[in-house]
């Protein structure tokens, strides 16, 4: 139980820290990559919480496809936030 709590806390920090960076960063490309990292940590968190089907979806859509969609959208607009 201690180990589970420890892993869950580490993963929670790994989800929240990139999310704060993504909000604060002026560089939208690095913000998008930070969101992808947060999504990946969330996928591992789902796996730890015994929801493997949600984890598969989160890993494929959150960490893969959403990141690509953000990057393509940034390429069509501008990289730096004003």
């Amino acid at each position, binding site marked *: 139980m201690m180990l589970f*709590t420890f892993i*869950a806390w580490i993963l929670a920090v790994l989800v929240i820290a990139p999310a*704060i960076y993504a909000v604060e960063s002026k560089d939208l490309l690095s913000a998008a990559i930070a969101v992808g990292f947060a999504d990946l940590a969330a996928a591992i968190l789902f796996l730890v919480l015994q929801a493997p*089907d949600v984890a*598969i979806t989160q890993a494929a859509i959150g960490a893969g*496809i959403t990141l*690509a969609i953000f990057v*393509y*959208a940034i390429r*069509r607009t501008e990289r730096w936030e004003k």
Partner: protein
Amino acid sequence: MRRAVAIAISVAVFAVLAYFFITGAAPVDYTSEANYTNPITGEQSNRSVPQQYLDDTRQDTGASNVVTAVVVEYRGFDTLGEVTVLFTAATGLALLIGEMKRRNLPKEEPNFIVKIASGAVLPFIVIVGTYIFIHGHLTPGGGFPGGAVIAAGFLLMLLVHVNRGLPERKISVTESLAGMTYAIIGLLGLVFAHEFLQNYLPLGEFTMLFSAGIIPLIYIAIGFKVGSELGGIMHNLKGVHEE
């Protein structure tokens, strides 16, 4: 200063929530004898709703994955609506982005190793995605995760081959056929079992691949549909037309 305060407040809120989430979540004993009242009909029962699903799924649907049974059988109509939402989003994106003027973007080929390795990895990604949606009624996963994994394979190809897109025509045909298959399976339920999306095929042997009636068929259709829709979205955003 205001930012620092906002960050501090959100971290504090998150820490409190996480503390209660980790320590306060006592496991619920669904097997205990308790009286539950149906708020609509007023019926009394000693089984909670999760316990009813866990008990009845096997004889009702023949699926060993209860989540799948709920998504496709008990709540099949909701899933049809969910698929429609995704379809509408993809269509709207194609309308908005598809006709936009394309900038002349620098097109730099990725290096040789990336090209060859991505070609070697692609079949395995597609096989894993197909496995996930074919075995949706047996193992964790189903149509949406499987389709998303296949779309991730498409994404790999779009990233590696910088000057090429996906075949738009084939993708839209696949998408439409898969959506039609789902609706037709539901309508056949109306014919053979008197209810839309009701199971009318034999349930087969429990935990075998050919079991659980229409669940595998619907999940195969959803897998194709989600994969082609997400692929189409990424193709439209990338903005390369096959000449």
